[in-house]
């Protein structure tokens, strides 16, 4: 099992009446009313410190991602964060997991090939290259990409980046969306033929097909826990099995919110309000922004409407504003409590969903810096050692930087 700390870098001080007063946390929350640049500078530095602390505490990887125009998590260029992290973790056996540059909105996509090349070289070959399609909010609303073209653009950008990393010769790219006369990326990555590629997804069939076809790691990034994720991951493994592909658990990644304290009661006292902040404010997004017509291809649209997937999803979200700590834990949205509680729930979830690459969100919503450091410490010292051995004697993690595939030594934590 490889365990990485994921960070969204959210705005930590939204007003109490934010979700009543404002239309959305994404795309149109007015900076001029809500944003404080001094505070934000502090958030970026705290977030970097928290991730570096996680690396020092013995975690296998540290993850950042890209989103735009929001208070939910705003690292518009995750590679700016990644470069700080790569530099600061040199000498540690820690992967720099970029989850990552949004392909359809980075123009030309060879920018991703170049920036990831920089990160892989700066880090000495420790990069995991996440290749997200991007949310509709980011790609269509913030970047103006036509919804029905987002996925096509994504496929073309992916093919271009992989070819830019692996082609023997300089080549011309005559694509539908990108035309480049002489592709010759400097620098190419250290990892050969290229860094491991992770594909974040939300359970659509076309993403499974894409990940399987290219032998990439499929990562289900959901905030709704293993209970809700079970049907998606079962579907994924069924899909893999049907195609005769090796069911290596490292082929799958999963994101989970985790909060640890000395006892279950203390976890409730420490984390409840931050969890509520995350679900009620950080995820305050109108459905129209999630799925502008065309964002889903016709077959996915048909499948989701016929199976009522949208409806059950949004019906469920309607009840969340009234949830307490216990509801989030009972539903599995957040795995929280004492180390014993958390390690049991997490181990069960990872086994049940067959997850090799686990990402844990240890900073949640409005959590202050000190509490985040505490959560990282308790997780890495009292939870992680108990789940770390899972899968290792049966499977090799082909989707992890080659030089980091052996288990991290416990002594690192003492540094």
């Amino acid at each position, binding site marked *: 099992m490889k365990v990485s700390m994921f960070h969204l870098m959210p705005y930590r001080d939204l007003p109490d009446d934010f979700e009543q007063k404002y239309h959305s946390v994404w795309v149109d929350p007015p900076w001029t009313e809500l944003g404080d640049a001094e505070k934000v500078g502090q958030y970026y530095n705290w977030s970097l410190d928290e991730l570096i602390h996680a690396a020092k505490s013995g975690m296998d990887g540290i993850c950042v991602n890209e989103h735009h125009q929001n208070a939910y998590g705003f690292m518009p260029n995750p590679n700016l964060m990644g470069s700080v992290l790569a530099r600061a973790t040199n000498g540690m056996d820690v992967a720099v997991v970029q989850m990552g540059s949004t392909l359809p909105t980075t123009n030309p996509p060879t920018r991703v090939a170049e920036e990831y090349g920089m990160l892989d070289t700066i880090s000495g070959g420790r990069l995991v290259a996440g290749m997200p399609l991007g949310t509709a909010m980011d790609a269509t609303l913030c970047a103006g990409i036509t919804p*029905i073209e987002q996925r096509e653009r994504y496929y073309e950008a992916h093919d271009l980046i992989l070819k830019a990393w692996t082609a023997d010769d300089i080549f011309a790219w005559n694509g539908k969306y990108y035309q480049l006369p002489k592709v010759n990326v400097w620098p190419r990555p250290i990892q050969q033929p290229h860094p491991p590629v992770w594909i974040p997804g939300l359970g659509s069939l076309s993403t499974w097909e894409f990940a399987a076809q290219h032998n990439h790691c499929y990562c289900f990034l959901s905030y709704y826990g293993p209970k809700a994720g079970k049907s998606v991951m079962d579907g994924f493994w069924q899909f893999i099995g049907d195609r005769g592909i090796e069911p290596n658990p490292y082929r799958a990644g999963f994101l989970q919110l985790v909060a640890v304290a000395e006892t279950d009661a203390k976890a409730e006292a420490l984390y409840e309000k931050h969890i509520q902040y995350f679900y009620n404010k950080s995820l305050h997004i*109108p459905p129209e922004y999630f799925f*502008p*017509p065309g964002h889903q291809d*016709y077959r996915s*649209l*048909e499948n989701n*409407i016929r199976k009522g997937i949208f409806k059950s999803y949004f019906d469920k979200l309607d009840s969340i504003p009234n949830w307490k700590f216990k509801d989030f834990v009972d539903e599995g949205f957040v795995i929280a409590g004492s180390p014993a509680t958390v390690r049991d729930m997490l181990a069960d979830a990872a086994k049940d969903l067959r997850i090799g690459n686990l990402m844990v969100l240890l900073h949640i919503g409005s959590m202050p810096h000190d509490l985040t450091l505490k959560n990282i410490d308790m997780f890495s010292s009292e939870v992680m050692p108990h789940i770390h051995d899972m899968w290792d004697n049966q499977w090799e993690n082909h989707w992890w930087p080659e030089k980091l595939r052996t288990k991290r030594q416990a002594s690192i934590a003492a540094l």
Partner: protein
Amino acid sequence: MVAVQEQTVSVWKNQINPKVHVAGSGPALVFLHGAYGLTWDPFLDTLAEQYTVYAPEHPGTTLGDPDGIKALDDLWDLVLYYDELFAQLGLDNPTVIGHSFGGMVAAEIAACYPQRVGKLVLLSPIGLWRDDVPVKNWMILPAEEVVKAAFYDPSGPLAQQMLSVPEDEKEAQDLQIRVTWSLACTGKFIWPIPDKGLKKRIHRITAPTLIVWGTEDKLVPPTYADEFGSRIAGSRIAMVEQAAHVPQLEQLGRVSDLIRDFIQP
């Protein structure tokens, strides 16, 4: 009510197979529908009393042909596609009426192929843009908000019909899929701002043109009537009261009369 025939035709090397609704008799008239897809309605019934109405479904919006949209990359392709479709249907110089998104397409056809269009009627068209009077982006509005902006009387039967969901579950799903995909396909040519160069080409329109606008249109504000009118030489503007974005249904009699008088002065 007139009998409506549905013809499926194959265009663009058979990659696009739209349904064309045909009804009535008399001189040929083409109706190009808006972003929500084609519904045969009382306005088309009225037109069919005097004309042979051809109402093609836009590429990709025809049930069973969702991939048709993949054959066209951009607006330039779409205009060429309509040139082909008109030729295939044997339409020689017809009157072309376009509503909303269809109005933009009609204006583009008339600007690119002036000889293709006998007379032109634009019903609340999109295609031009003013920063101070933005056109609402219906692709990211809840249906209730669209209805409020698009109808003079949002609680009236016309508006409520747009919000109504069939009781039968399968029919309700069919409708949701059809409407969403129509918005996706038409959105391909207008996202994120419906200003794709018509302003550079619109002066080429030579067809006599009637521009019809509801005075209460909050989706595409009535100011745009002048924006279109001032750019099309000799055009006429008719403002329709107690109507918003769908004047041809909200004021069916008035708009039908206006169009009849315009086509046969």
